[in-house]
């Protein structure tokens, strides 16, 4: 069953082609359609816009053009210029406007074209939207979603200002929630929850995953925030990862299985709130933990995940927690340097083997 595969045409040659059956999330018999992650997000947006007239989209070039990655394509024709609203290049004010609209009862879904540009909007994101509820003693609520493509690799990334993974900037800020889906199924289900949530939600979409295909149920569903998803059960090593790295973990697990190493893959799914219990339970079972993130190593998400393992499962650890993360460098343009920026399947395999031999 080819429920998950990737569109090799739209990506550069070097992206590893992930086997179609690597992640199976829909049990046989459940009515489902195959679609890309971009389509799954679009479907979530469209369904929520149908369901709730307060939901609307705003961002640069999200109208006819459909956004830099085509996610909102067709929605302009369907919902019109009012509800699929092109904005000027004013990132901080896009977010501020989303906040203001949310304060008067709308449910905006804003887009920043690349997560990198959110540097211009950190004030409205982290100082205003995230804090208004507490600062007003609960008078305010700010139900918006901020969609941002992030990540790099495989010709989709274009050097230092268009390739970052910045989940830590947001996950460190109380008042925000941060989702980072790895599959079309997760993306749609998490987007529905995000839109229905009464808090500002940062929704990070890995560029390489947009064209990944997978099954999405025909019926309405949503996925909980603050719950990790165990993408694969195993008994020897727990790999904690999110977004695109989940795929490397899954592919590595397949190889490792042939070597007799049984890998459990925990997809963090919502970086914040983080499901510490599921992570703890998994490592208490396996006794070994590998944390994997695309974001830069230093002060990246891996440290937090490791600390949680430490707090939850120290006595069960048979080996030190290992981490794989992005090289601590701005992303260079040249292939010869961009290769090696981020952990890949081989790195995961090697690290898991190391853990077993500790």
């Amino acid at each position, binding site marked *: 069953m080819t429920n998950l595969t990737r569109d090799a045409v739209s990506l550069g040659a070097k992206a590893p082609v992930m086997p179609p059956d690597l992640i199976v999330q829909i049990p046989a018999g459940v009515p489902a359609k195959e679609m890309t992650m971009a389509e799954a997000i679009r479907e979530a947006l469209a369904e929520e816009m149908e369901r709730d007239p307060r939901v609307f989209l705003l961002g640069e070039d999200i109208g006819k053009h459909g956004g830099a990655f085509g996610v909102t394509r067709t929605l302009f024709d369907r919902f019109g210029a009012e509800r699929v609203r092109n904005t000027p290049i004013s990132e901080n004010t896009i977010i501020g406007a989303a906040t203001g609209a949310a304060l008067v009862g709308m449910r905006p879904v804003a887009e920043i074209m690349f997560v990198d540009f959110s540097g211009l909007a950190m004030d409205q994101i982290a100082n205003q939207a995230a804090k208004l509820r507490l*600062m*007003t*003693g609960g008078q305010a609520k700010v139900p918006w979603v901020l969609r941002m493509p992030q990540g790099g690799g495989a010709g989709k990334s274009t050097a230092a200002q268009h390739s970052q993974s910045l989940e830590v900037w947001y996950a460190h800020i109380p008042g925000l929630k941060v989702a980072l889906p790895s599959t079309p199924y997760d993306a749609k289900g998490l987007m529905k929850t995000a839109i229905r949530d009464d808090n500002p939600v940062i929704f990070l979409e890995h560029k390489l995953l947009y064209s990944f295909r997978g099954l999405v149920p025909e019926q309405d569903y949503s996925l909980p925030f603050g719950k990790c998803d165990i993408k694969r059960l195993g008994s020897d090593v727990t790999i904690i990862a999110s977004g695109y790295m989940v795929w490397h973990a899954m592919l590595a697990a397949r190889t490792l299985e042939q070597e007799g190493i049984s890998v459990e893959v925990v997809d963090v799914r919502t970086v914040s709130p983080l499901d510490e219990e599921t992570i703890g339970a998994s490592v208490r079972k396996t006794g070994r933990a590998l944390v994997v993130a695309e974001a830069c190593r230093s002060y990246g998400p891996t440290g937090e995940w490791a600390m949680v393992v430490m707090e939850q499962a120290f006595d069960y650890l048979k080996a030190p927690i290992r981490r794989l993360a992005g090289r601590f460098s701005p992303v260079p343009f040249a292939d010869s340097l961009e290769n090696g920026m981020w952990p890949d399947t081989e790195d995961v395999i090697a690290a898991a083997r190391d853990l077993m031999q500790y």
Partner: protein
Amino acid sequence: MTTLSNDLKLEMYRRMVRIREFELTAMDVFKRGLIKGTVHPYIGEEASGVGVCMALRSDDLIAGTHRSHGHNIAKGADPARMMAEIFGKEAGYCRGRGGSMHITAFETGSLGALAVVGSGLPIAVGAALGFLMQGKDSVAVPFTGDGGTSTGNFHEALNMAAIWKLPVVFVVENNKYAVSTYYRDAVSIEDLSARAAGYGIPGVRVDGFDVLKVYAAAGEAVERARSGGGPTLLVTECYRIEGHYAGEPEVYRDRAEVNEQRQYDPIRRFAAVLTQDGTATAEQLEAIHQEIQAEMSAAVEFAQNAPMPDPSTALDYIYA
């Protein structure tokens, strides 16, 4: 002007005095160490806030700043609950979580008081967009200072409101200083309302010591916004009589300059108008002062006696 009712004019006067007395009281309790944090007095600017806010309906929403005690009172907020807020008490509008810089009274029409300079403007733009999409005819009114006009927010917000013809009245209170910085050292033109032309919207400059002029100018701008005419940039020329915050040393200006500005005192000036045009006698106005002073004593008592937030609620109101 003559068409304003006596009641309205007296209510303006009352709110101006209430602001003045609230600020004097706040500075006093701060100096006496009864409250922590900081207080940014609005003294000298009362006509601006009252003139603008009394031109609004209660479903028109303001967005405030670090210096928004006055805006809240002008919009009708209860000084006792405000006082409780600056005392950090659960009975405060923000349940003590906000303090002086963030006093926000949703019930009288506020979107929040944001202490990052300029950050309320985009939020007001969004509220106005929301009004339009909901078919409401409310207006959003963000306040900022002369200093706030140098922020990127100012430009982005005016441009966005202009292209979408949103019901926003951007109020710039030019009190001549941003902390220690004289406005002409930070703003490249003398008349800030001239910037409106760069957005294709009306720019209006008004004597911010004169509550009736502010009220008239604001009323016009609000009506334009309400009826689909788009945003206005309204600059009220006033002066910050006190230091940037209570106790601030003011090394950057002469006392002579401040004293010269004191003569424009908007309350004294309005009192003269009201007595001259027969709205009230000096005694009646004096009675208002007495009444408000009593209100403030009661507010302080209320605030002092009110309980602090219970530490067990520390995790409340972080997420909805």
